């Protein structure tokens, strides 16, 4: 573990420049959302957000001069990435998200607390049945 003993002090000029960069990237965030990249829409949005996040982490959170804590933080992000990517692999390679013991989606949960069956919301106005279950 290497630590420099005098703490690095970044000055207001750098912080002001980083803020300016973040504001420009916010405009870019809104701007790119108008274009349709198809399936890449979310990826593009997350990419711009990650540029902003990197600026905040490196400059405002001083990870530039804080290698040890940067490893901790990136370690956390790595496991979040594993969680996200494996979950999406699982979901995208299944034909159905139902457990193998179920044949069709559950429309009511009879075992709900206080003996009151819970109807999952259909997203339609009250009293109206869903038009066509998938």
């Amino acid at each position: 573990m290497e630590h420099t003993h005098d703490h690095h002090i970044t000055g207001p000029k750098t912080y002001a420049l980083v803020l300016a960069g973040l504001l420009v990237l916010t405009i870019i965030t809104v701007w790119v959302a108008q274009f349709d990249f198809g399936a890449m829409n979310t990826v593009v949005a997350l990419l711009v957000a990650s540029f902003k996040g990197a600026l905040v982490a490196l400059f405002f959170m001083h990870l530039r001069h804080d290698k040890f804590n940067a490893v901790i933080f990136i370690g956390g992000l790595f496991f979040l990435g594993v969680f996200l990517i494996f979950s999406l692999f699982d979901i995208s390679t299944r034909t159905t998200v139902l457990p193998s013991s179920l044949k069709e989606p559950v429309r009511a949960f009879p075992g709900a607390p206080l003996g009151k069956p819970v109807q999952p919301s259909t997203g339609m106005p009250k009293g109206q049945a869903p038009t066509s279950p998938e």
Partner: protein
Amino acid sequence: MDQQFEASKIGMWLFLVTEVLLFGGLFVGYGIMHAKHPDAFIAAHTHLDWRLGALNTLVLLVSSFTMVMGVWAAQTSQKGKLIGYLSTTFVLAGVFMVVKYFEYSHKFHEGLLPGKFYAHQGDTVEGQFMFFSFYFMMTGLHGIHVLLGMVAIAWLIYRAQKGHFSSQYYGPVDMVGLYWHLVDLIWIYLFPLMYLLS
């Protein structure tokens, strides 16, 4: 002192990692449901006003800047500037919550509520309640973090006024600063995912 500072900083970063994973679970859930029901999510997000989201993004980014300037003021033993920057950060956090309040009350009024409470009339796309389940869970949890951050910043202002912080001792300012930047960081991802779907 130096060792204590470094140790508390490692502890703070470990806490921030648990926070990332806490929100991470919600982000993964959002990703899965979005991938499964893209039409419902895109239809539902049009109920949100992206201009208010963008305004709140600006407010949080500037508050992150004033927070880090507060850390700088503490590092250079400038008491007056420290109190000034911390107070500005506090006020900006308040502005964020006020904007959030108007957004929430608008949604309550329209019946744009999570899960089985969803009561919006005249939908053409089914399943929009799912989006609002994630919207309220994620922005709600984020809002709680903003409120806790305001409490922490108020505590810093109180201690700064008593003259506790200087270039020799500014650990608490640094730690709350890190927390505040993480809250900002999470919002940076929430804004495009909630307000700017296409």
